[in-house]
């Protein structure tokens, strides 16, 4: 079904709601125990962004007590769709109301992983999607939560519990290492201390992948009053976290020491780190990697891209370009302003972590 940008929210959503919710209900009935909904969509186009948002709202209305996790693909910075910034603003602001958490993949980042880490010459969408699938698999495949003797029955619920403690902070990012081509893999050896050290620095320095990590960035010295800590952060581009979840898969996983992630300096002052950091493990290796470490984090890592998207969308909105395409389908200028306001609020909240 081909649709026009976000107006699919207003037109196609309601039109197909009954059929879609019917299909959902049938799937739900087949489950012994519904862990939740995992919705996958992009933010730039029409169907994924508009319909995806509408369906999420329907799911929330119909299943008010279920977890809803939205996996959202952020478009390439240099356009795929000209109105992608509008669609992104409308999508995120609406999802924030109905979804429990929003797990983000940025096309630019995944593309760089394909180019620089996987050494793929002519990158296709298949390659990009394979990386995203690998990263998602590394989170959702069975694992043991801390102290558990059985595999987690409810990964979605456990994920939410660990990551989303406050409704104002729902943006989650994913980092998974190692990531490399088959040929390189054959010649590489990994240790848990090595992997965890890299992941920690990637988190602190806001590196999106395991290359070009800035080792100069350090967490601020503990004990500083929050205001000072704030300026200190800005100077060193230090990425403050709200919550972190480590998922470790592979050989000798029990020996992995995740103490580095409990350091209070990594976190915002109003949360104790014992609560903010958790680890899942399994000795089962994942997808050819003898050892694989994933970090799901709720931190300031998306602040800059988000600010960028809102800035561009706002500039476009100031000239009212393309707005007539949305108003003819029921999204008014007020709706736009509401969405902008919601996102500025989110940006402000994350900035002051």
């Amino acid at each position, binding site marked *: 079904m081909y649709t*026009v940008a976000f107006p699919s929210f207003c037109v196609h959503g309601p039109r197909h709601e009954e059929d879609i919710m019917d299909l959902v209900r049938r799937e739900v009935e087949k489950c012994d125990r519904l862990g939740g909904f995992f919705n996958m969509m992009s933010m730039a186009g*029409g169907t994924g962004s508009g319909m995806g948002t509408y369906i999420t709202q329907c799911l929330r209305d119909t299943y008010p007590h279920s977890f809803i996790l939205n996996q959202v693909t952020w478009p390439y910075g240099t*356009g795929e*769709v*000209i109105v992608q910034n509008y669609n992104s603003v409308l999508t995120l602001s609406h999802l924030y109301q109905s979804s429990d958490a929003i797990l983000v993949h940025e096309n630019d980042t995944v593309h760089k992983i394909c180019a620089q880490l996987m050494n793929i010459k002519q990158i296709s969408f298949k390659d990009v999607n394979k990386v995203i699938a690998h990263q998602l698999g590394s989170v959702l495949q069975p694992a043991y939560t801390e102290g558990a003797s059985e595999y987690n029955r409810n990964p979605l619920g456990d994920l939410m519990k660990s990551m989303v403690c406050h409704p104002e902070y729902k943006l989650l990012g994913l980092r998974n290492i190692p990531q490399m081509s088959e040929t390189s893999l054959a010649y590489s050896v990994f240790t848990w201390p090595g992997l965890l050290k890299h992941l920690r620095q990637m988190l602190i320095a806001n590196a999106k992948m395991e290359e070009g990590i800035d080792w100069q960035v350090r967490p601020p010295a503990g004990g500083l009053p929050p205001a000072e800590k704030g300026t200190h952060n800005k100077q060193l581009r230090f990425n403050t976290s709200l919550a972190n979840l480590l998922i470790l898969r592979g050989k000798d996983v029990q020996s992995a020491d995740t103490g580095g992630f409990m350091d209070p300096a990594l976190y915002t002052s109003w949360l104790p780190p014992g609560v903010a950091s958790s680890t899942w493990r399994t000795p089962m290796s994942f997808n050819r990697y003898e050892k694989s470490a994933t970090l799901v984090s709720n931190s300031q890592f998306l602040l800059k891209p988000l600010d960028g998207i809102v*800035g*561009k969308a706002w500039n476009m909105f100031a000239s009212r370009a393309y707005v007539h*395409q949305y108003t003819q389908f029921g999204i008014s200028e007020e709706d736009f302003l509401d969405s902008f306001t919601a996102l500025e609020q989110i940006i402000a909240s994350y900035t*002051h972590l």
Partner: protein
Amino acid sequence: MTQSIVVQVGQCGNQVGCRFWDLALREHASVNKKGIYDEALSSFFRNVDTRRSDGDNNDISGGKIRSLKARAVLIDMEEGVVNEILQGPLRDVFDSKQLITDVSGSGNNWAVGHKVYGSTYREEIVENLRKAAEHCDCLQCFFVIHSMGGGTGSGLGTFVLNVLEDEFPEVYRIVTSVYPSAEDDVITSPYNSVLAMRELTEHADCVLPIENQSLVDIVNKIKHMSHSGKLGAEIKQSSTIISGQGGVKGQEKPFDAMNNIVANMLLNLTSSARFEGSLNMDLNEITMNLVPFPNLHYLVSSLSPLYTLADVNVPSRRLDQMFSDAFSKDHQLIHSDPKHSLYLACALIVRGDVQVSDLRRNIERLKPSLPFVSWNQEGWKTGLCSVPPVGHSHSLLALANNTCVKPTFIELKDRFMKLYKKRAHLHHYLHVDGMEQSCFSEAFSSLSSLIEEYNQLDATKGLLMTDAQRLNIAV
């Protein structure tokens, strides 16, 4: 998948349309080896069992191809061109019920086409369109093909545009308009064009202006390449965008080469709607992404490559060259200078063996030399269709919404004023029932407003635009 209906009006519209159907058949034949009526075919063709005689209900969905009928309505107020089509090799592609003809033509008079024939044939036109629409599961777009300078294409063509908006308001209207060149042999072409322009501005979703001179230049360039016979630079004859080889039609006629270019442009425009690819781009995405303001919907099209070299051992720096060429003035279907004006938006429709990384690399490479309006610095819309056109391994159609169309419109306005100041030939128009002086002055002011809208955008070019002040949120 969705369907589109082509409405070809007037002599030019029908000749271009004819080439479109021939090349479309050729394209589908080269891809569809098994003769199965698939979704790609259904976007422009019906599958009909001609043995059954119960009129309209003989469409077959799926299964083997029986008889393909174009989803088209052919309108001309002279019989010559349409008759030729019906006697030629494409006769079986058109249902006789799809035609609306008259005998004496419009005399190069927009008013005759629009007012006289418009009112005479309105009912029949609506009837015809309804029938064609009923044969579609999901009609998405009307393609109108016509010229601006004459009487039928220009007058009746824009009348049909109005009808399409009234009767099918939710279906997109993409218009391919052939604009007259300065040395046009029709003296009243400026009147006809300006009167038609107003209709296009008010009732079309997207307009693709074409200039005959650009088509001539492309034809000459290709012929020159063919005859230069440089070693290793031989062109594969069937691969040029002016060739009809491999199509149904036999002998080539004088305008065929030029019309084939326009036909190829339309095939590329609709490729993603017909064939699959890793990044689909449907027609409504074109009308959405390329039109930031309702009236500014005139798109400059350029095609590349113009031909493929016969020697397959030529290294493929061809791919990046294809992108560069699409932004060269030699490949445009209208004379204009986009690089020295302002881009409002740009779409790249790529066909063939091209991946997203090739696309991104070339956009990065070309971006610095292309001036974009301040609020749309990354105003690129991209589509990847995996099926290339016949004879090529890949191709690119670039559609630019650029203020460079302004000089074309200003020239049109000037030629109009030259005649209008002297009231030359005006009586032919005013004699027509329903035609008044106000039609002229309103059409003129519509064109002037359009030019002014482009002016305002041009004024922002090169200025350092500060970012709009963001909303302040209390923390």
